[in-house]
């Protein structure tokens, strides 16, 4: 092959076709979706995230939760995700417009978290789980995130923020476990994950 302009143009054109089809299309169309107004409450769907939840996304990213947990529910025609209780409906592009980084994930070494805020709404449960996963979730292979917590001696009254923890890393009497700001933000983000509201483009059970 010695017609080099042809080689050069071909190299750029073949690649450019997919660049236009996948990247430019996604940027223009998926990148400009707007929230819709809920007929029931008058609020926005998907609901905006709290400041703490937005900070929690960074903690989620920094500690690589994504490598074991997906955040997507596939349609019933392709999978048993809905039958297995991951959510009442498939997730669609509009569900993710508030995420600074979208954590769809590609692994389910751990359970899907699309609707973890619905399944586990308890802040205390999440703190106990992050501190010592095996204690509240038997058989779990999730590592401990103790480094997001401080163990300190109780001075006078125990702190209101202290987490009741059990297990091998629970501190002795006279000590308490309190979450760092990172832990609080991460839990705020996890609790916010509720993609069970209705959207016009996707009726339930689909």
């Amino acid at each position: 092959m010695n017609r080099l302009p042809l080689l050069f143009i071909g190299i750029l054109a073949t690649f450019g076709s997919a660049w236009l089809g996948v990247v430019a299309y996604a940027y223009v169309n998926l990148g400009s979706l707007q929230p819709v107004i809920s007929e029931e409450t008058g609020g926005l769907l998907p609901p905006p995230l709290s400041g703490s939840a937005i900070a929690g996304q960074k903690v989620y990213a920094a500690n690589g939760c994504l490598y074991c947990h997906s955040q997507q529910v596939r349609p019933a025609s392709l999978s048993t995700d809905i039958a297995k209780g991951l959510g009442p409906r498939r997730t669609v592009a509009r569900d993710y417009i508030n995420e600074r980084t979208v954590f769809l994930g590609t692994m389910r070494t751990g359970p899907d978290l699309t609707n973890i805020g619905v399944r586990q709404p308890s802040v205390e449960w999440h703190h106990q789980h992050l501190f010592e996963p095996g204690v509240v979730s038997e058989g779990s292979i999730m590592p401990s995130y103790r480094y997001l917590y401080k163990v300190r001696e109780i001075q006078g009254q125990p702190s209101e923020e202290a987490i009741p923890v059990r297990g091998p890393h629970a501190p002795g009497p006279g000590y308490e476990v309190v979450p760092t700001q990172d832990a609080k933000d991460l839990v705020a983000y996890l609790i916010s994950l509720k993609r069970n509201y209705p959207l016009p483009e996707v009726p339930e059970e689909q």
Partner: protein
Amino acid sequence: MSAATAAAPHPSTHTEVLSPQERYEIDRSLRAPVLLFFGTSIFWLLIGSILGTLAAFKMSYPGFLDSEAWLTFGRMRPAHLNVVVYGWASTAGIGVGIWLMARLCRVPLRSQNLVISAGIIWNVGILVGTLAILAGYSRSIEWLEFPGFATPILFFAYGLIGVWTIIMFRFRKPGHVYVSQWYLLAGFLWFPWLYATANILLIWQPMQGSGQAAVNWWFAHNVLGLWFTPIGLASAYYFIPKVIGRPIHSYYLSILGFWSLALFYSWNGMHHLIGGPFPAWMISAAVVASIMMFIPVFTVAINHHMTMRGNFEYLKWSPTLRFTVFGAMTYTLVSFQGSTMAIPALNSITHFTDYTIGHSHLGVYGFFSMMMFGAMYYIIPRLTGWEWPSASLIRWHFWLAAVGIILMVGTLTVGGVIQGLALRDVEVSFMTSVYLEAPFRYVRSLTGIILTAAHVVFAVHFTLMLLRSGEQKKSATLFAKSTREMATV
């Protein structure tokens, strides 16, 4: 036209022919830069192997090294991936790419110092990025975890390297352009386009919503398909005919294989997101393109096989050929597997499981890394003017690597199917999928030790080579004494 000339193979099916003087000048000009890329790539290979093996054991022993943030699984795993993809595979690929380009263009590298500086900057970028991931600056975008302050360093360094590769091509000696050069030219043009697009839209000015994932997997899949694959195939197209001393079987199959790869591979990425929150056509296009990959893959496989036919006994002697043919055969296998994984009915089992992890290791290691090892065994003696000190160390390297990767991919594949069937079954709890997969994960971690051992052997041998250990040999280091005269090794 006489019958004899009509039957002669197409001139573009031959690798370069150089006088000893030309060869000497080209290899001398490449010596320092290419050895820098090879040496640092082997260093990152060792670091990446250790990170990967430690991360793997954490899945069996979640309490192992869990007290410090930087040692957590969610940081070591992306550190492993990025060290291996950028530190090892890309760095080795750049070294092989520059060497092949100079040889095939029949011109020496004119600006050694610039390329050496670029190589140093490139390695600084990888070091900064890796430390940043461990320190908690990862954005958790797969294959793009290096934060926004590390990627410009890599991009700048790559720019210097890429420009010089293309300049070499521009000033090549007249004559036919060989198939390896098409692949190299394409790969060296595609990578910066990929990396710049992904950096701008995902790291520096993140676009909104799920389109991020589309761009993410367009990027990640194409790093394999349009950066590693072109360099790997350029290497196979060069070393197979070089070692056995025959031209490539068919010029026309080479053309078909090249253009169909360029056209179809670039659309494949969305098959990582089947069932995800995207318009149906985006997924469908990716599934179709993935199936169409049968064309480039089997075209290349037939072309390589027909070139090798009647010459398989060279595998007994030549280290380069043994690694290269292992890589070429794995390329066919891993591409076939990849196409089948895009079929939605099968994807619903393998998606989200260790099956995918097995597939990616088969691609990056079984195909690309083996190809790079083969190329290095050929190139390094020509740069150092010294033959490999020990045939048995090469043999150890080959068998540890081959057995390690086959066992690793085998366990992840079987385990992945079991895990996938459990995840899909409505009657089975999630925790059951964890229990069922546990023994496979454990064996996989052990295979990580085997691969790490292979890399230690290779690193030791490379160091001995640089120290010019052993006696000066008159001929190349072969596995066994050749009973046939070999063109080259």
